[in-house]
């Protein structure tokens, strides 16, 4: 897992993400980081702390509160030859910039037959569990995967976050890099009423200080098992792991890490082995990414399945503020689905 001889340091996800940008700003003079409050202040989640001071104002800078402008300007910078890394402060705010993402960034290579490309990485925190209410909690990953021409990446721990972000920045196509903000500072068991565990107690907080990359499009096996395959990403990887350990189910957990391009081989191999598949995401259910996963599993593994594919998701309502934990697909919802799928 570790890259060569390089020294590791204990990092939380924010620090790992910061380190990835720091390294890319250092290595590639064309990398620029921009977004609301990312400059002097270092970002509302501190992901860009210290970067402006170190790399200068023309490399790391604040932008107007205008997501259409942020993404549109980044497309133009990419056409010039820069490698922009814009931050959208919350994934919930990406919608004003969606036309620039869907119709411009994603299509530029195709429509110009390689005359122009868009090597942009849009970083944005997503997901709930921080009492963010309906405008600071959404999980829009299936909107992103539905765009042809955009890659969608979601890390679940500091080590992956750094390696994936470096790979995303170096990628010559637009990447939407969704950061599960609930686990910025520590993995989340799903039990909101228990003390928060810091990343320092987790293996994946040992992060090499130097450059390394994790190839996009590859899932990670978080836990090997024979009884059921659990497909998850971001925060839900940790919640799933907690529930599985509590129940003593011999589940295989795949952390998808990249939703598009998807690691279909890993999914197919695992489901054919276990014969059961549980899909977990925090996003709303209808037309969620789980629907795509369920269809793929059905198409490719139908004759190996011993039970219907199950989905555990958020509900099809806006993310409520006070009733956040009734919305969140927590341990009860996951355990119920697991019991059902194991009984069939």
């Amino acid at each position, binding site marked *: 897992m570790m890259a060569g001889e390089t020294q590791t340091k204990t990092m939380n996800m924010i620090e790992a993400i910061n380190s990835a940008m720091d390294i890319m700003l250092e290595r590639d003079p064309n990398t620029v980081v921009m977004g609301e409050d990312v400059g002097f202040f270092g970002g509302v989640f501190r992901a860009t702390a210290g970067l402006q001071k170190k790399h200068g104002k023309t490399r790391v800078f604040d932008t107007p509160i205008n997501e259409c*402008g942020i993404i*549109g300007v980044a497309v133009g910078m990419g056409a*010039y030859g820069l490698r922009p890394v814009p931050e959208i402060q919350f994934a919930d705010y990406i919608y004003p910039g969606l036309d620039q993402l869907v119709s411009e960034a994603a299509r530029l290579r*195709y429509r*110009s037959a390689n005359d122009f490309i868009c090597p942009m990485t849009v970083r944005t925190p997503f997901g709930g569990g921080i009492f963010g209410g309906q405008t600071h909690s959404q999980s829009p990953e299936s909107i992103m995967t539905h765009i042809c*021409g955009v890659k969608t990446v979601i890390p679940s721990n500091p080590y992956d976050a750094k390696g994936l972000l470096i790979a995303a920045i170096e990628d010559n*196509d637009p990447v939407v890099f969704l950061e599960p903000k609930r686990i910025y500072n520590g993995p989340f068991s799903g039990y909101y009423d228990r003390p928060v565990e810091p990343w320092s107690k987790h293996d994946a907080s040992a992060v090499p200080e130097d450059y390394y990359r994790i190839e996009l499009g590859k899932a990670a096996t978080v836990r090997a098992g024979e009884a059921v395959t659990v497909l998850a990403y971001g925060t839900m990887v940790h919640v799933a792991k907690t529930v599985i350990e509590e129940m003593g189910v011999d589940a295989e957990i795949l952390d998808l890490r990249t939703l598009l391009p998807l690691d279909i081989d890993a999914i197919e191999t695992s489901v054919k082995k276990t014969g059961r598949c549980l899909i977990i995401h925090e996003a709303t259910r209808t037309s969620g990414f789980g629907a795509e996963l369920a269809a793929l599993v059905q198409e490719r593994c139908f004759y190996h399945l011993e039970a219907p594919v199950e989905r555990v998701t958020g509900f099809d309502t806006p993310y409520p503020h006070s009733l956040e934990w009734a919305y969140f697909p927590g341990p009860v919802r996951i355990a119920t689905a697991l019991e059902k799928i194991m009984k069939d």
Partner: protein
Amino acid sequence: MPETHRRPASNLPPLSLHIPEPRYRPGDTPDFGDIEVPAVEATPRPGEATKPDAMRDMCYGLVRVLDFDGQAKGAWDPKLSAERLRAMLRYMMLVRAFDDRMFRAQRQGKTSFYMKCTGEEATSVASTMAIDRADMCFPSYRQQGILIARDYPLIQMMNQIYSNRGDHLLGRQLPIMYSAPEHGFFSVSGNLATQYPQAVGWAMASASKGDSRIATVWCGEGSSAEGDFHSALTFATVYNAPVIFNVVNNQWAISSFSGFAGGERTTFAARAVGYGIAGLRVDGNDPLAVYAATQWAADRARTNNGPTLIEHFTYRAEGHSTSDDPSAYRAAQEASAWPFGDPIARLKQHLIALGEWDDAQHDALRAELDDLVKTTQKQSEKLGILGHGMHQPFETMFEDVFEEMPWHLKEQCDQMLAEQEKKFGPNWKPE
């Protein structure tokens, strides 16, 4: 009616909603006598470093150089050589000859779509001639004049229009959505005004690298209503980006007159005022005024004095596109009644007044350009026309979505190839 929609009892006058309506509809006789035409000498030329708030009047006036007798006058006269003026005339005439031919090609069923820029040739040709060839242009869909003024091969434009074997965009784009990076011409989108913030980003990148190149971008007055336009102006003023914003106010956005973009209340150049950037309003049918204003804005941008918004006041003499029928919504004589005439006729008149041109030369040039276009068209059509035979290998449909083709696209590509083989038989090959 729900309770909330009922007018409460009061003695206040009822509110009324204003729906803009153009002054002339089919059957009306248009009269543009109330359009203010300031004297050529009346418009001062501020220095290129003038602060925007000291030149607000420029947003409500009209930069002019050519009077209606073909004389170049006033502070804005760019004093171009006769040779340069003839080059400008040639480019504009070539645009018109090209437009006429390609419009006809669409009517003959050789392609799906075309858009002319008749009457607006100056807004792209003269504008492009006033900037450096290395500067980057972010066009809308009606700026074929940029490519022509930069000597882009006509055959490549035609190949794109026909989506034929020579189309370097592989038939992926609607006709006229060109892309020409070697000629400083950004890929045309088709979504409106998206190029506006992109041009600002390009200009910001150039400035951040200490480059000397600037960006220039076009949209119509109609699409200046898009959010992208306002995003772009905000970013441009915040970062003092070296960019020129062109709004080609040709009065019509398909069937919606400029009032639906706010034109009843103020000028489009005046959008600059609120953003604290320089604004110029120009007679868009006066090629020398367009040239002079663009040169002013380019000098301003290149010396770190920031962006400029130029409104080109002009008239769309023909339909929006081959899919449009302007006789259904506007008065037929509007173009001929337009008080600023035709840009080609005006430049011709000027060159004749200078003793540098005559009718015989003009007719000969027109014949030469018609012939050039016709000959090129024949060459292009040898590479195929739309809908007659297959010009691109089928798998190109799946290429360039990403730099490397992911598994799901490979699978879909195989599926599509199998479909084609089923349809055309095992010995089938794309032409």
